């Protein structure tokens, strides 16, 4: 799994909703190597950040040589990114992470909340007819469904306030989904509490589950040890950035 550093030209940059942006840049080496679950570490050179910022890969178009990310504006780095224009150059390191999503055949449930849904889009594209569960606080945070429509067999939606789909948390939709579908495997990415509750439910149903973790990172390539944790079953020390970010749920929760 080779990693690259590319000065990538931004080819599409648009706000999906005012706080969430989609950026497509030309980084052919990274595009050629990317696999679902991997991420890139980006930086606007000459800006105010020191460290790079990690974002899950949403799509990699080998033919066009482009990579897509979707990011939420939360702080100085993402604010700076949102100010960039098409044609601007962004420095991109990737694809990072050896712990990727499983793409083996089977009926897979993809469950995500918030920007955690971003890397699941890339996974959905590489699976056959996945079942997708989009969880959001409120209807306006469920725009993600549009990105899954062409890949998903069935799309479920939950919102905390019930403004779209089933009212409640993602985990509350599981019994119905598992009843209505013959699920072999679950891949989850979202807030920790969501990942934990889904992992617990999956375990109780005896269904394999993998989760994509998020930790503060400095290097993204396994050298700083800023992002490590101890595997729950194995007791092994893992680096989220290089051993992950995707891990079997039973090693995490």
């Amino acid at each position, binding site marked *: 799994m080779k*990693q690259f*550093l590319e000065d990538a030209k931004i080819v599409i940059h648009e706000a999906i909703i005012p706080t969430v942006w989609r950026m497509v840049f030309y980084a052919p080496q990274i595009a050629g190597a990317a696999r679902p679950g991997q991420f890139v570490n980006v930086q606007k050179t000459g800006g105010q950040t020191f460290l790079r910022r990690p974002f899950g890969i949403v799509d990699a178009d080998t033919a066009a040589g482009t990579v897509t990310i979707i990011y939420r504006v939360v702080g100085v780095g993402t604010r700076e990114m949102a100010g960039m224009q098409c044609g601007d150059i962004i420095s991109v*390191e990737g694809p990072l992470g050896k712990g990727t999503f499983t793409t083996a055949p089977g009926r897979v449930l993809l469950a995500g909340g918030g920007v955690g849904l971003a890397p699941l889009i890339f996974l959905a594209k590489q699976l056959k007819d996945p079942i997708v569960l989009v969880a959001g606080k409120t209807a306006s945070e469920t725009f993600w469904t549009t990105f899954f429509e062409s890949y998903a067999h069935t799309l479920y939606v939950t919102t905390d306030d019930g403004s779209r789909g089933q009212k409640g948390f993602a985990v509350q939709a599981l019994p119905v989904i598992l009843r209505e579908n013959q699920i072999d495997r679950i891949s989850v990415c979202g807030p920790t509490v969501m990942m934990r509750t889904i992992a617990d439910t999956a375990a109780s149903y005896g269904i394999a589950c993998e989760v994509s973790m998020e930790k503060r990172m400095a*290097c*993204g390539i396994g050298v*700083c*040890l800023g992002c490590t944790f101890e595997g729950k079953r194995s007791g092994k020390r893992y680096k989220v950035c290089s051993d992950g970010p995707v891990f079997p749920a039973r090693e995490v929760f």
Partner: protein
Amino acid sequence: MKQERIAVEFAGISMKTPVMGASGTFGFGIEYSDFLDIDTIGAIISKGITPLPRAGNDGVRVAETPSGMLNCIGLENPGVDAFKRDILPQLSRHDTPLIVNISAGTAEEYGELASKLNVDGVAALEVNISCPNVKEGGIVFGTRPEAAADVTRHVKDASHKPVIVKLSPNVTDITVMAKAVEAAGADAISLINTLTGMAVDIHTWKPLLGNITGGLSGPAVKPVALRMVWQTARAVQIPVLGVGGIASWQDAVEFMLAGASAVAVGAYNFVNPKAVAEIAAGMDQYCEEKGIGHISDIIGKIND
């Protein structure tokens, strides 16, 4: 690149360039092999190795700061035995000196650790007496000249390798520490380790870092590192390895003019994983343009 122009000998180790990857920021070197040819760099300084495995600190371990970062890793590492068994063999394929950075809780343990590293594949030891992120030892060894000298002596007695002692910048007078470890037999000195700093989360009212305080590094600290290298280089006879905030070949040249015989790049590797190679290339180019026959010709040549 005329490699011979920037090839140096540091503490008895021959290096192809004077630019190394600093401890804790360069892994064991191989992690960077997609970004640069690690057979062409100065040296790899390993993550800090301790007598026993360490899990490091809990909670958030890294945070960005203006032109720098804080870390409180807490010396997570597999311990010296696993290092020798699992990691060292992987590195033996490479033709670049590996300097092993070591930490321990007592002077005696430092010595035992050093003796375990009298093995092939280890080019030198860098003795970390200055880790701000662990409770035992660190602070005392790094801030008391007698304790630093004691550790140095134990390592020197136990080791067949060149011994580089790494000093903490969190002291009133760096030259006192430098002279103490020189007198105790150190072959070289490296500095600086990180400055102790902190950050507070104004939303949760909690420290941002799991260990409350952490080590500040990156370009923000460069002026302090440069000053300490300058002070130290004129206070001791042994060579100085300059570390702290280096992010360009210009920075590296500043350190060498101030008295460093070689340099190491730390946090900036995270920003540009090719930095160690690119900085060396820039120094070579500088020699070319300035008509400098060999990079060593500029060591300590600051006209102050």
